[in-house]
């Protein structure tokens, strides 16, 4: 999903929101001590260099790939070739600030901030459906105008992870699994953004949000038979949607052309075919940065956003694109480690939810680029151009750091 302009951080509310479930004093205390903890955790503690390094490397790769895909075109059109490079750098910088802010928050602060974040995300999703929203590529998913444009469907992802972790991670004493009421509440909370995203309609984000919810239910220890039931219900709903024709024509087209993208390379399968050709033509070692004729010729639409992986494929070859995948895998591995060592079920679930989010989103994105999955628009986490996406992903990395920080502190 394209973000033409960087996202500015939202202004910090004057005081933390009070969540009635927790004692107010706890939230206030945690907020007041944050500055002291920052120094300890970053300088004196043991920062997760693996996670920070992998995430940083991915952001850097993203910036380079965005530049490689947009620079030659802009130069050819007589414009500043560094326009998108600069914007993406700004996106990453803003994201880094947000990441640090999340990393410094302890669980109490996170809990306190979660409900307003979730509410804001859902309001944003609601707002895009009003005339305030803008339509891009068949989905009405943008909010704002001019320099500041936000895609609420990206920002709702971390909010959903946190609120589901809160709802599923706090069992009464002695319980090993979330109770039925908790699960139902979690499903209801997930259903709001799911429904709103479907109205845009944005099949990609829908898939990711559904995967996050499903993955967190699994990680929370909900009984397999419940999960099986839920999976069957989801499958039935999908079939029903197909049969009843609830999907938009362009979505049906994309799904159908997936079967053989090269059959109609000029028409509906154009994107898929060009993506596959571009990646495949890179070979083992790639054409060299800025030397790809497919990329330079602008054959892949949306190349710097959802199809940024094709740039790595053509110009850096298997070596480069596999490295990108391995870096993403490293982030997930660190995330799962954080989940396993988390001090509380809340931390475990939050980390697991982020792993599910990144894992599924990476698989869907790269899978569609290499022709394993139909074309649905989702960005590659941390790499694709786009303010909302980069900030949301870095916020998630910040959450992982925060969970780990709690873990380290307790040890």
């Amino acid at each position: 999903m394209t973000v033409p302009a960087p996202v500015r951080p939202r202004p910090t509310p004057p005081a933390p929101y009070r969540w009635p479930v927790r004692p107010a004093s706890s939230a206030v205390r945690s907020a007041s001590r944050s500055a002291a903890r920052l120094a300890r955790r970053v300088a004196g503690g043991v920062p997760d260099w693996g996670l920070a390094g992998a995430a940083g490397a991915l952001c850097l790769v993203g910036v380079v790939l965005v530049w490689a895909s947009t620079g030659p075109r802009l130069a050819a059109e007589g414009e500043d070739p560094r326009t998108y490079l600069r914007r993406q750098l700004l996106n990453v910088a803003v994201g880094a600030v947000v990441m640090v802010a999340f990393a410094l928050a302890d669980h109490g602060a996170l809990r306190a901030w979660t409900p307003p974040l979730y509410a804001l995300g859902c309001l944003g999703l609601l707002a895009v459906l009003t005339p305030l929203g803008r339509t891009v590529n068949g989905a009405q998913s943008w909010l704002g105008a001019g320099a500041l444009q936000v895609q609420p469907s990206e920002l709702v992802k971390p909010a959903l992870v946190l609120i589901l972790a809160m709802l599923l991670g706090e069992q009464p004493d002695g319980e090993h699994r979330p109770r039925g009421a908790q699960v139902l509440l979690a499903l209801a909370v997930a259903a709001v953004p799911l429904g709103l995203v479907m109205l845009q309609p944005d099949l990609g984000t829908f898939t990711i949000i559904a995967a996050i919810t499903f993955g967190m239910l699994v990680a929370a220890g909900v009984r397999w038979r419940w999960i099986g039931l839920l999976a069957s219900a989801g499958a039935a709903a999908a079939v029903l949607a197909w049969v009843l024709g609830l999907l938009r024509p362009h979505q049906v087209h994309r799904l159908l052309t997936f079967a053989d993208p090269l059959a109609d390379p000029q028409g509906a399968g154009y994107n898929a075919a060009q993506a596959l050709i571009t990646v495949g033509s890179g070979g083992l070692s790639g054409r060299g940065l800025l030397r790809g004729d497919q990329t330079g010729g602008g054959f892949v639409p949306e190349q710097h956003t959802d199809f940024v992986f094709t740039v790595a494929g053509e110009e850096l070859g298997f070596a480069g694109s596999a490295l990108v995948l391995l870096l993403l895998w490293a982030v997930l591995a660190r995330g799962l480690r954080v989940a396993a060592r988390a001090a509380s079920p809340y931390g475990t679930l939050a980390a697991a939810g982020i792993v599910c989010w990144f894992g599924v989103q990476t698989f869907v994105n790269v899978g569609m680029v290499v022709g394993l999955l139909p074309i649905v628009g989702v960005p590659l986490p941390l790499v694709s151009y786009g303010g909302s996406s980069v900030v949301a992903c870095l916020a998630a990395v910040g959450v992982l750091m925060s969970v780990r920080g709690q873990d380290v502190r307790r040890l």
Partner: protein
Amino acid sequence: MMRRPTRSRLLVVHLLVAVLFLVLLGRLWQVQVLDGDRYARMAAENHTRRVVVPAVRGEIVDDRGRPLARDRAAVRVSVDRAALDRLPDRGRAVLSRLAELLGRPREELAARLRPCGPGVNKPCWAGSPYEPVPVAGGVSERVALRLMEREDDLPGVRVERRPVREYPRGTLAAHLLGYLAPGSSGAGRGGAEPTGRDGLEAQYEDDLSGRAGSREVVVDSAGRAVRTVRERAPVPGATLVTSIDARVQAVVEKALKRAAGRVAGAAGSGAAVVMDVRTGRIVALAGYPAYDPSVWTGGIRQADYARLTSEAHGLPLISRAIQGQWPPASTWKIVSTAAAARAGYPLDGHYDCSGSYRIGDRSFRNFGGANLGGMDLHRALVVSCDTIFYRFAHRLWLKDDGAPRPADPMQHMARAFGFGVRTGVDLPGEAAGRVPDRTWKRETWERTRKQTCADARTGYPSVARTDPRRAAYLTAIAKENCDHGYLWTAGDAANFSIGQGDVVVTPLQLARAYAALANGGTLFSPRVGRAVVGRDGRVLREITPPVTGRLPVPDRTLAYIRHALAEVPRSGTAAPAFAGFPLDKVPVAGKTGTAEAYGAADTSWFASFAPADHPRLAVVVVVSEGGTGAEAAAPAAREIWSGIYGLDGRRAALPGGRPPAGLPETTGVSETDGLPAAIGLSGTTGLSGTRGSWDDTGRPR
């Protein structure tokens, strides 16, 4: 701290992540490493284009090197359909803007972009769907500049400087030259390149076209050239030197237009041929009506094409000198005379030119029914007596009657004079004419018998309702044809002897027959092309009209016939047309012909050569529905002769009637070579510096 179920669940997530990433890595390996070469090839097809760099087409010049057709630089606008299709509105807005700038209706441009196929009328695109489609040629510099200024509004539109065909002498020799049209014909040539489709342009396509160069360019998704990978310079086409004399051709076309234009209505059509009897070369060849060949330049418009192919406009696309077929009428008598002499009838014997001649129950009348008394064959030719030839034909037919192998001496002589077969002239689409004989008669009868016999049985019921007498007449003919239509009758033979009935010839066939008579018996396969000369002035190939046969007629007979024909303009049938003509200076010999056509005015012929004693040129004129030979064709021939020799107070087009002996100095460098390839077009890159090549780089990068 961790409870058991969560730990095992995290393991599940771990495994899932591992599986997903291994799947992605495996697929990546498959796509990039295992199938990498295939995709690299597809990518290359995707973003490299072979751009054809057209070669300058060779000139067609006349016998003195005057250009009849040549290339000129012109701005051409073409549209890349693939690029338009990728726009959100499939290029509608772009086409509208382009149409406005060009001052043409948008529908017309859209029509030109449609691929040709069944049910698609002209204009349409016959070339490859990946090639840019030329939509406007000959665009003015002013419009070209405006298009270049607005190039950002016009994605997929290219403004190129391309060679277009130019005809410095306007409509002169249109049928001879033929025309160019884009489309696939030659192998290895780009389908979009204009290719010779008719006339000399088609016949000498391989010599004239040269070899197009090519350039491999990397393009972006909008089809714009980014850089050049490889380049091969084009080889310009050679010059075709013809034996056509532009001045004689002009004289002929003017005379023909005057003669055929006099005919009432649109029926006036005709043809004329001037041939060098000693060499077999064509000096002029014209058909009427003709057309302006420049209508083809830059793609013909629908209305022009409709006019060229419309019956009401006299089908001007048809080259009547080689494609028109008429009964030769009395011009045929040179054949009959030669055949009679060969069969043993003395030339200076005494024959009765009666008013009519009876064969069976049918009376064959002399022209006008005049009884001219006894005479020799000299006089028979001069006054064009028919009955003498009827008698010859009847007697010869009687001799063959019942013979196991009929000699058919008349048909035999006709074929020896080159009738009934194509002359083999270096022009496409030539008609063969027809020499009817027993075999032809039987074949025709077998082909039509079913219908004829059915008509004989039913008796034309639809006609009978309105006109019973006509129906009875038609039924009688059908009955006769059904029963005996396969027989070569004496009546057929009589008609044949005076060039009527089923015999038809083309004007070119008649011209070469008269040339053979004039040159002492050599039958040529005529040629228009004289030599192919390279750009450097080197003669690549000389073209000599091949000799296809010799007349089986003794010199004495030929001289006798020539002598008789020399008398025709003095005191014979053509005397009125040649009144006042200085025959003592230029003795013209000729024969008139008046072919009777059913339900239409007569076809007027005049076949001639001069000087009668030492012939150099043959001139044949036919005017459809022109009346008698003396009324239309002979005056036109007189005008042509006086134009050639400069008589009747005119300037000599070919002084002394002598075509030049050698080749003209051909211009190795034509006027078009010096033009820069992209005047006024901003920033065109990758110009090949080769002289005589055209660059067609699309848009500046």
